[in-house]
C-alpha cells in the first residue's frame, strides 16, 4: 500500500476537486439559507392553508433522491428549455433549492419554538413586527435552529458528492478518475474520506457543543 504511483500532480488534481466541493457547498448553503429563511418565515406567517403549495414543493425536494433532482433539472434546463447552462450552474441551482427545502423546515421550527406570550409581550410594548422579529425572535430562534443548521450544512457538503451526474468534477469524482488511472482504490478512497471527515467532524463537534451549551442556560 505504501509504494504508490500517486504523484504530486495527482494530489493537486484532488485538491482542485476538494476546492470544487467546497465552492458548490458554500454557494448552496449561502443561497439556500437565504431562500430557506424567506420560505420559513412565509410559511409561518401566512398559515398552513395559503402556504400549502409551497409546503408541497419543498416536501417534494425532500422526498426525491438528489441524484434524480439533478438529472431532471439538467434534462429540463438543457433539453427542454435549451438554456445551455453549465453543469456547475445546474448543480448550484438544484443544491440551493434542496438546501432551502430543509432550511425552511428548520427556520419554521425555530420560530415556532419562541413562546407566543413572549412575542405578544414584545408587540404590546410597542415593537413593530420587524422589531419583534429582529430583537426578540431572532436571538431566541437562532439558539434552537443553529445546531440543526450546522447539521444541514454538513449534510449538503456530503450530498454535493452527487453533482458528478451533471459533469462537475468534485472531490469524489476526481478520486474516481484517479482510481481508474492508478488502480489503487483503497489508498485514494482513504484520502478522499479523510478530507470529508476532517472538514465535517470538527464542525459537527462544534454544533454538538453549541447545542449542549445553549440547552443548559
Amino acid at each position, binding site marked *: 500500500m505504501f509504494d504508490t504511483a500517486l504523484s504530486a500532480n495527482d494530489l493537486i488534481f484532488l485538491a482542485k476537486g476538494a476546492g470544487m466541493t467546497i465552492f458548490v457547498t458554500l454557494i448552496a448553503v449561502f443561497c439556500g439559507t437565504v431562500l430557506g429563511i424567506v420560505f420559513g418565515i412565509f410559511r409561518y406567517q401566512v398559515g398552513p392553508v395559503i402556504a400549502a403549495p409551497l409546503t408541497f414543493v419543498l416536501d417534494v425536494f425532500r422526498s426525491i433522491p438528489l441524484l434524480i433532482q439533478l*438529472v431532471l433539472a439538467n434534462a429540463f434546463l438543457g433539453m427542454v428549455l435549451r438554456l445551455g447552462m453549465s453543469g456547475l450552474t445546474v448543480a448550484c441551482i438544484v443544491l440551493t433549492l434542496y438546501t432551502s427545502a430543509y432550511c425552511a423546515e428548520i427556520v419554521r421550527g425555530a420560530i415556532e419554538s419562541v413562546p407566543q406570550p413572549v412575542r405578544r409581550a414584545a408587540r404590546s410594548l410597542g415593537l413593530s413586527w420587524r422589531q419583534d422579529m429582529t430583537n426578540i425572535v431572532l436571538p431566541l430562534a437562532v439558539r434552537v435552529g443553529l445546531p440543526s443548521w450546522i447539521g444541514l450544512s454538513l449534510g449538503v457538503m*456530503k450530498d454535493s458528492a452527487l453533482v458528478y451526474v451533471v459533469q462537475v468534477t468534485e472531490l469524489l469524482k476526481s478520486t474516481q478518475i484517479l482510481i481508474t488511472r492508478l488502480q*489503487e482504490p483503497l489508498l485514494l478512497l482513504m484520502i478522499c474520506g479523510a478530507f470529508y471527515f476532517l472538514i465535517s467532524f470538527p464542525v459537527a463537534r462544534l454544533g454538538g457543543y453549541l447545542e449542549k451549551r445553549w440547552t443548559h442556560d
Partner: protein
Amino acid sequence: MFNYTFQWKQALARLPQMLDGAVVTMQVALLSMAIGIALAVVLTLFRLSRSRILSGIATSWVEIARNTPALFQIYMAHFGVASFGIHFSPWTSLLLGITFNNAGYLAENFRGALKAIPDTQARAGRSLGLSELQAFRFIVMPQMLRISFLPMTNQMVWAILMTSLGVTVGMNTDLYGVTQDLNALTFRTFELFAVAAVIFYLITKIIQLGARLLARRMFRY
C-alpha cells in the same frame, strides 16, 4: 411554448419495469433498515460498555458514518473492499453501504433517546434482580426504540433515497438503475426520470403514512 415534444407514452409504457425496480429499492431499503437497527442497538450497547475498545469501535463507526458521504461509503464497500480480494455484487455493496450509514445515524439517535430515560429505571430493574443486559433488554431498550420511532421513520426515507446511489457501483435493478438503463435505450431522459421521481415521492409518502398508522397502533397509552 417549448421547442420540445414530451413523449410521456414512451415513459409510461415502461412503468411495469420501473415498478419492478421500485420493489428492489424497497427491498434493499427495508433490509438495510432491519439490519441497521439491530447493529445500532449493538453499537449503543458497545458505547455504554466499560470496555475502551468496544466503545472506541462504536464511536469510530458512528463518526465515520455521519461525517463522510453515503456515496463514499458505498464506494468503500465496493471498490475499497475489493483491494482485499473480496468482491461484492453491486446489490451487496449497496446494502452494506446503506446499512453502515443507517447503523451510524440510528446509533446516534438512540444515544439521544437514552438521555430521555431516567437512570433510576435501569437501577430499579437491577435491584429487582435483573442482570445488566436484562435491564437493558426489558426496560431501557423498548423505551429507547419508542422514543426514536420518528427519527427511524426519517432514516427509512433516507434509506430509500440512498438506494439511488447504487447506480454508481453498477446496480441496475433498483428504480434508479432501471430508469438509467431505459434512458440509455430511449433517450427520453426528462420523461423517464420524472416518472421515477413520482414513484420515489409516492414511496416516501406511503412509508410516512404507514409509520404514522403504525405509531398510532403501537404507542397508545
